[in-house]
Every structure is written in structure tokens, then in C-alpha cells.
């Protein structure tokens, strides 16, 4: 079944439950994304106040994870969802774990930002190095939340593929930092901070990629974790071809697409 429809249950309360749940996840995703954005801004501008806000708001992300988890538990216990509804709830339980970890990464970056805000910022130029990686990580997370909102498995695959760019950039930053440290040992502290930030952003990319994988699972029922993206793409193409080739359903079946 390559389709997830939320609002068509006979039980209208169930429709509302699932719709609320999905909106809550998107809200949590929005908060995690803004936390990341602000943490990077605080770091780049040496803004201790903004970094402090991010650190305070981390608790909100955590609270949302707990609340959404509770709601998923309630739906599992009371509605006993099946098929696409079950996959939606399972995917949400996993998605919010990744979003909470994005919140943790933003928190780490904010902490580094807070510490460095009071220091000599001669090494501040170094943060230009991670600026691009930061923009990419935010774009990837935004893309993952977007495909989650639209339940679009095809685009999810395209977004997941972009994680590789982040991985490559992280490798490049690592090499660059090593060069800094060899050239001038006085930059070691700053370079290590830079590496921590780059590492956090690389992890955000991984979490965004995970969310894309859950969307693919949610929509088509394919578990694509630990599978190469090329294999996933091939299997999705084969699945689409097989669906197209299926004989028409028996007459009288409402909306049957085979």
C-alpha cells in the first residue's frame, strides 16, 4: 500500500487522534530545527544570551518527546491500529527519538557557543568553516520534516541521499582542523570545539536521514534501515512497476487500486 490517509476512518475521533499526533511531531520538529538554527547563530555571533535560550528550551523538546510518546502509547492501547495506521504510530515513536537527539546536538552547540562567547574570538574565523555545514544540516532536517508532513516516500529518498554530502563535508572539516592544529598549537582548543560542532551537525544529518527512512517505511511498509540507498531506490522502482502492472480489482470494491 503506497498511500497513507489519515482522515478517512469511520471513527472520527481516531482521525483526530492521528492528525493531532502528526501535528505534534511537526511542531516538535519545528522546535528542534529552530533550536539548531539559534545555536549556530549564537555560536557565529558569540551571543551568550541566545545560546542560553537554546539551553533553556532544550527541556521543551524533551517534554514534547515524552508527551508524544504517551499519546502513541494511548493510541496503541486504545485503538489497536493496524497496517498504515500502525506504521504511522511506530514511525512517529522513532521519529521523535531522532528529533530529541537533534535537540541534544543543538544543546551541545549552544554550550560551545556559550563558552566561546566570553573568549578571545581571533579563532572566530574558524566558524566560517562550519557555517556551510550548518546550513546543509538545517536544510536536510527541514527536508526530512517536509517529507514527513507530505508523507512523500519518493522525496524522502532524495533527501536521505543528501546526508552523504554532510558526511563528506565533515571529513573535510576534520582534515582542515588537523591542519590548523599542526600549524599552530594555540588553535587546538578552538579547533577541538570546531570539531565538536561539525560532529554534532553531521549527527543531525544522520537523524534527518533516519526520519526519511521512517517516512519510506510509513508510506510503503518497506523497512530500509541498514540498506544501501541504491538498493532502496531499486526496490521502490520495482514496487512501483509491480503496482502498475497489477490487474484491476474485482468489480464492486470501493477505491480498490490493487
Amino acid at each position, binding site marked *: 500500500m503506497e498511500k497513507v490517509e489519515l482522515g478517512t476512518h469511520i471513527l472520527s475521533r481516531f482521525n483526530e487522534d492521528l492528525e493531532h499526533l502528526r501535528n505534534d511531531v511537526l511542531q516538535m520538529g519545528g522546535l528542534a530545527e529552530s533550536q539548531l538554527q539559534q545555536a549556530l547563530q549564537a555560536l557565529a555571533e558569540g551571543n551568550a544570551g541566545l545560546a542560553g535560550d537554546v539551553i533553556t528550551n532544550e527541556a521543551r523538546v524533551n517534554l514534547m518527546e515524552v508527551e508524544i510518546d504517551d499519546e502513541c502509547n494511548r493510541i496503541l492501547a486504545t485503538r489497536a491500529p*493496524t*497496517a498504515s495506521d500502525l506504521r504511522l504510530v511506530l514511525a512517529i515513536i522513532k521519529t521523535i527519538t531522532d528529533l530529541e537527539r537533534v535537540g541534544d546536538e543543538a544543546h551541545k552547540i549552544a554550550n560551545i557557543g556559550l563558552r566561546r562567547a566570553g573568549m578571545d574570538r581571533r579563532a572566530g574565523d574558524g566558524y566560517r568553516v562550519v557555517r556551510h555545514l550548518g546550513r546543509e544540516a538545517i536544510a536536510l532536517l527541514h527536508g526530512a520534516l517536509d517529507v514527513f508532513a507530505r508523507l512523500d516516500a519518493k522525496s524522502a529518498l532524495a533527501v536521505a541521499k543528501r546526508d552523504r554530502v554532510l558526511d563528506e563535508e565533515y571529513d573535510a572539516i576534520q582534515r582542515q582542523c588537523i591542519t590548523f592544529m599542526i600549524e599552530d598549537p594555540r588553535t587546538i582548543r578552538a579547533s577541538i570545539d570546531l570539531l565538536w560542532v561539525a560532529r554534532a551537525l553531521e549527527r543531525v544529518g544522520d537523524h534527518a536521514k533516519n526520519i526519511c527512512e521512517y517516512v519510506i517505511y510509513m508510506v510503503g511498509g518497506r523497512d530500509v534501515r541498514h540498506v544501501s540507498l541504491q538498493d532502496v531506490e531499486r526496490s521502490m522502482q520495482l514496487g512501483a512497476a509491480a503496482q502498475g502492472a497489477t490487474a484491476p480489482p474485482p468489480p*464492486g470494491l470501493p477505491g480498490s487500486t490493487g
Partner: protein
Amino acid sequence: MNSLASGGAPAPGTGAAVPAIAGERAHWPANPRALSEHLSFYYGANRALKDISLPVADRRVTAIIGPSGCGKSTFLRCFNRMHDLQAGNRYEGSITLYPENINLIGRGVDPIEVRMRIGMVFQKANPFPTSIAENVTYGLRLRGMKNRVRLAEAVEQALASAALWDEVKDRLNESAMALSGGQMQRLCIARALATNPELILFDEPTSALDPIATAKIEELITTLREQVTVLIVTHNMQQAARLSDYTAFMYFGELVEYDEAAKIFTNPAKKATEDYITGRYG
């Protein structure tokens, strides 16, 4: 007339070969105990079942789900020829019982013999208004078994298999009508088990029972799976998901989808199945 020799379920694979399965049937069980092929059934001019091909896996639970009037019970009743009792009913196609390779709905096959081999448990418990022991031994006595010791052994064995022995062992000669609803249903299962059938058909066996009695029956069916093949019709989707190894979804007399239960309940292939099991069917 084909002979349906009685006495225990033969080991699978010892009789006639089951037709090879491939292509669309690749996910079918390799060793069905029974196989319906292009089965159609008519109540007079009304075609209630349309070309149903479906395996019943050996010593597994196969559940049939679908909305009211979709033909689930009609399909189930074909297996023990319940429809023969009404004039004008007509079967097409075949239901083959393996490994004997006998067409259960073939003209030459005696329905009484079929029912000896295929037990049935109904929605509403229907014990006979006799003692508990007599209920269990009814089928055996019908077959001419008179030896009291063997009958007593059969009572204990069947009641133990139906998880009822401990509750009724001290009152075997009391009326079955004094039992609770859940106990009556388990007595009916014991009665079906007493003749040592190969296949037991359950038609909504728990829809009139409370959750505790339902759980006992479900536990029993899960245990029975080790010794007998089970085909169950249920309206309770969660029950089908809990109990069955394979699930078939029927709609308007047609088989829409058949697959492993885990697949049907997590990722069905057909939209009609998805709509039904997720409560979107209106």
C-alpha cells in the same frame, strides 16, 4: 464413493502431492491440509462465493475476515458440507483435502464422512441437553464405539485438550446446560476434538463470550494448532491478528487478499484490505 478413512490426522507429505505453487501463489504455504480451487457457491440463483482459491495451511490457523455478508461463513460451511441440507444449493470448483487428495465437495463423497473428519464450532455454544460426558462421546458413539473404558478415556482426553477437564472432572454426568457460556463453548470444542478431526472450523467462536472466556478459547486454539488444522471466521480483527498464521480478506463473495497474518496486518497489498482492517471501510 471415495473413502474417507477415519482415525487421526495422517502425517503431512505422506499422501498425494500438493500442486506446485509459484508466481502469485509464491507466498502460499507449501503444505496445505486443504485447498479450495475456483470455488463458487450458489444459494439457488444467488452466487454467494465467486471463484475462491485459498489454501488452509497444515497445523496452522487460517483466519477469514471481512464485513458481514461477504461470504466468510458460507465459505467455511462448504468444508463440512453444511449447505447440503438446503435444496437448491450448488457448489462449483473443488476443496481438496490432503494428503488423501479427496475433493470434499465432490458428488461421490459422503457428507457424513466429511463431517467425521472436519469438526465445527459455532458462534453460539450448542451443547446437547445431555450430560457433559455424553456430549463429548456423541460422535464416537455415532461411529459405533461402545467400550466404556475407551469412551471414558476419550472424554478425559478431549476435555483436557479443550482445557475444560479440571473444571468439570467431578461432574461429568451433570447436565451440560448448567455450564457457563465459555465452558459450553469449550465443551463444544471438546466434542469436535473427540472424533480426532484433521481440520476444525470455527465460526465466530467467541463473539458471544466475555474477554476472559474469549482469552481461554484463544489460548486453546493456539495450543490446538500443534495437533490440528484450524480455519476460523471472525469479525474481531484483533483476534484474527493474534490467532492466525495466515489471513484471508473476503469482500462481496470474493477473496481480495490472502497472506501471512503479519503481512496483512502491517502492510496489506490491496487498498480494500487496508481500508477494512484500519476501519476506513464505510
